[in-house]
């Protein structure tokens, strides 16, 4: 690198930093966020957390109710992910460059994916809540729609990454579309896809909490209930059960991923 290039890259870095600082300052102004205030509140907040968020013996009695709700949440996330994965597989096959049937379907598949992914899960839960009311199906559908968009995009990428030569070789032998997909595309991209599905289950358990708060289902609702009745010990217990579940599921899926990838 000569001196000129170094000077140029320094200049770019400086401009970049100034832009970032400018945007951050602007955001702070719009949101009325005070950086120093928040630093000042941090020790107080942490102190409050350590003082109040403990599990007391009485709260253990609530464990069965909490576990039942947690169970509902876990099943909700798994069912939403698996069913979304099945539909995403078709949308992914339509959307991928390698396996698309025609351009119209490809565009439609990508559009569905983009639409359902970019409308946040919050909006979906609120929209569905209006007509489905407070039951598990609302939460399930909200998770389902978001997962569908995400997995379709991930599947399109996995299928695109799979080698083209196997597809070409099968095409040369006169294989039908179904045979090509079954024998060349799916076997190559299945581990990738499975890894995405596992990742999505982890994510969905976390978002299920949020969806639960909004739609009044599962563990999120339990959390909200205790939170609003100022029962912070129970809040802690609920939080810990969620944390443990998420960590266990992460460990299991990491194991599976290590074998298949």
């Amino acid at each position, binding site marked *: 690198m000569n001196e000129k290039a170094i000077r140029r890259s320094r200049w770019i870095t400086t401009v970049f930093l100034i832009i970032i600082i400018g*945007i*951050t300052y602007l*955001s*702070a102004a*719009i*949101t*009325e*966020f005070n*950086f120093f205030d928040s630093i000042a*509140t*941090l020790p107080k907040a942490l102190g409050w*957390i350590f003082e109040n968020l403990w599990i007391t013996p009485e709260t253990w009695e609530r464990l069965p109710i909490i576990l039942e709700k947690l169970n*509902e949440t876990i*099943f*909700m996330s*798994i*069912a939403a992910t*698996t*069913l979304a994965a099945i539909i995403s597989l078709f949308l992914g096959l339509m959307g991928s460059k390698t396996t698309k049937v025609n351009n119209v379907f490809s565009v439609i598949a990508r559009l569905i994916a*983009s639409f359902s992914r*970019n*409308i*946040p*899960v*919050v*909006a979906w839960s*609120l*929209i*569905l*809540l*209006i*007509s*489905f*009311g407070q*039951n*598990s*199906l609302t939460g*399930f559908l909200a998770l389902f729609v978001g997962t569908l968009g995400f997995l379709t*995009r*991930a599947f399109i990428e996995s299928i695109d990454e799979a080698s083209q030569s196997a597809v070409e070789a099968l095409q040369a032998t006169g294989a039908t579309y179904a045979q090509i997909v079954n024998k060349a595309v799916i076997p190559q991209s299945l*581990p990738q896809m*499975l890894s995405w*599905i*596992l990742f999505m289950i982890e994510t969905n358990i*976390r*978002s299920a*909490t*949020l969806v639960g*708060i*909004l739609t009044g*289902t599962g563990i*999120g609702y339990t959390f909200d209930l205790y*939170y609003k009745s100022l029962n912070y010990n129970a*809040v802690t217990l609920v*939080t810990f059960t*969620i*944390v443990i579940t998420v960590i266990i599921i992460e460990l299991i899926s990491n194991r*599976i991923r290590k*074998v*298949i990838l």
Partner: protein
Amino acid sequence: MEAIRGGAEPKQSYIKRTRTGRINIKAGNKVELVTKWTIAMLSVLTVMAFFFFNYTGLQLERAITETAYNLKTMFLEPSLSHFSWGEAFHQIGITVGLGVLATVIGAIIALLLAFLAAENLSKPWISKAVRVVVAFIRAVPTVLWVLIFAIAAGLGSEAAVLGMLFHSIAYLVKAFSESFEEVDSGILEAMRATGSNWWHVVTHGVLPSTFTYLLSWTFLRFEINFGVAVAMGAAAGAGGIGFELFMASGFYFDLREVGFITYAILVIAIILEIVSTRLKNRYFPAAVRN
């Protein structure tokens, strides 16, 4: 030698046979087995899930027709009734602003922590400790962090940003430290051989070669944080477009306004996605995933 073997029948253990005695032509592939089992388990759990659901007050037929009608009203006749366009822009600005703050501050703190968490730049016990803490923070959903901070620090942008910050830091520390660990150990060794200290190694060896990765990860996190900021507004009352969405659907039952807000969110999310795809294609780190 013959005596030791004891004339036992020679076993051709290297050929695997099925129970019927045929030669097994399927490789005893662990990958295939695990894949099959995972799929089977997921299917079983999915079927079971529908028996565990709580269907109180659900009239499926009515709900589906109603949803179809609602979706039509929302997406085909969006309009504003409870606030003006200017107000809408302001609220969107707040949401984006929350996302920016959580991402920028989070990235700076995460960068420092990631040096401690990366195995090739830090001591093993420090790296382990940071990882465990970060894994715990990540396991708690962001809403819960915000809600917990909201009681502790009072509701407002401070609580929202602090809550979102926790998660952003935890996510980025993991992503950053993994990028650092992928740095060619030869570079580090060469630099250490010249007598450069830790700081030199970081600024001249690690950062330049991972900068684009860090940038893509940070931008991805910004995309996520925008969605989180919407959620925080709705679930924790942290303000912004999410709160308006919550009010429109939960309080006024104004579907046209819900439609308008959804479109606004959609437009911004798509803009962010286009920018992020551009960034990705330009800096080509294939390892960066959503």
